[in-house]
């Protein structure tokens, strides 16, 4: 009897905003907990998640984010968004970032750096995208230790044959 291939899920992480860092981490962690193989491929802004200089400085900006409501900060403003004119005030992104980090901490969600370490320790494979690594001039020593290596798009296709692929 042919050995059944284990389920494999691969995430392409292309965004470097704080809120867009978490989907792959949360779903990847759930997958590992259930015995599913996990691969993470970091490309373009997603490389911020795995570079030493950027990982602790990911931000969320209220400008042009229509989902961002003032009521999230406990104001009795119902469905009113944060006016873009307020979003451009210096410090608003820092404030929104601080606020989101506080909310995540209260839920027991670890910071991105620690989350990546957990996934790596649990057996996830993580790769940087060669083309954007070259474009951004990122060196091997700039990466967090969780990055196994830098691979081409074609390598990624080979490594994820039969996997379910999620683009974030």
């Amino acid at each position, binding site marked *: 009897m042919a050995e059944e291939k*284990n389920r494999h899920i691969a995430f392409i992480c292309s965004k470097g905003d704080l809120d867009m860092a978490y989907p792959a981490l949360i779903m990847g962690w*759930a997958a590992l907990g259930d015995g599913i193989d996990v691969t993470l491929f970091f490309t373009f802004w997603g490389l911020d998640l795995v570079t030493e200089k950027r990982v602790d400085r990911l931000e969320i900006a209220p400008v042009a984010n229509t989902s961002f409501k003032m009521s999230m900060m406990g104001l009795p403003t119902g469905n009113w968004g944060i006016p873009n004119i307020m979003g451009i005030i210096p410090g608003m992104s820092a404030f929104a970032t601080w606020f989101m980090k506080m909310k995540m901490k209260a839920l027991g969600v670890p910071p991105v750096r620690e989350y990546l370490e957990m996934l790596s320790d*649990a057996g996830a494979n993580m790769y940087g995208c060669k083309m954007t690594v070259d474009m951004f001039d990122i060196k091997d020593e700039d990466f967090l230790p969780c990055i196994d290596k830098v691979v081409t798009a074609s390598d990624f296709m080979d490594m994820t044959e039969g996997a379910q692929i999620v683009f974030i």
Partner: protein
Amino acid sequence: MTALNTITLNEEGFMTNPAEWTEDIATVLAEKEGITLTDAHWAIINFSREKAADSGAAPTLRQITQGIGITTKELFALYPKGPAKKVAKISGLGKPEGCV
């Protein structure tokens, strides 16, 4: 496998009544998962059952590592290929509720 005659499993293989659980049952359930229980395994099972008695739900993996003070690597080495479900199943609990 006679120990298993006294318990009820749901379609996913989780025990439906944690009160039916005994240490012997845990040993048999662990063998089904290919795991021979050691003290390190038992520490996790006991923690999970205590946690579930308090909260009503099996703990998440992060609650286990933080609660016992073991690393993610150690947890995945003790319960390889899917510790979230394996720990809960062997501990006689339902699926962990929570995402981290």
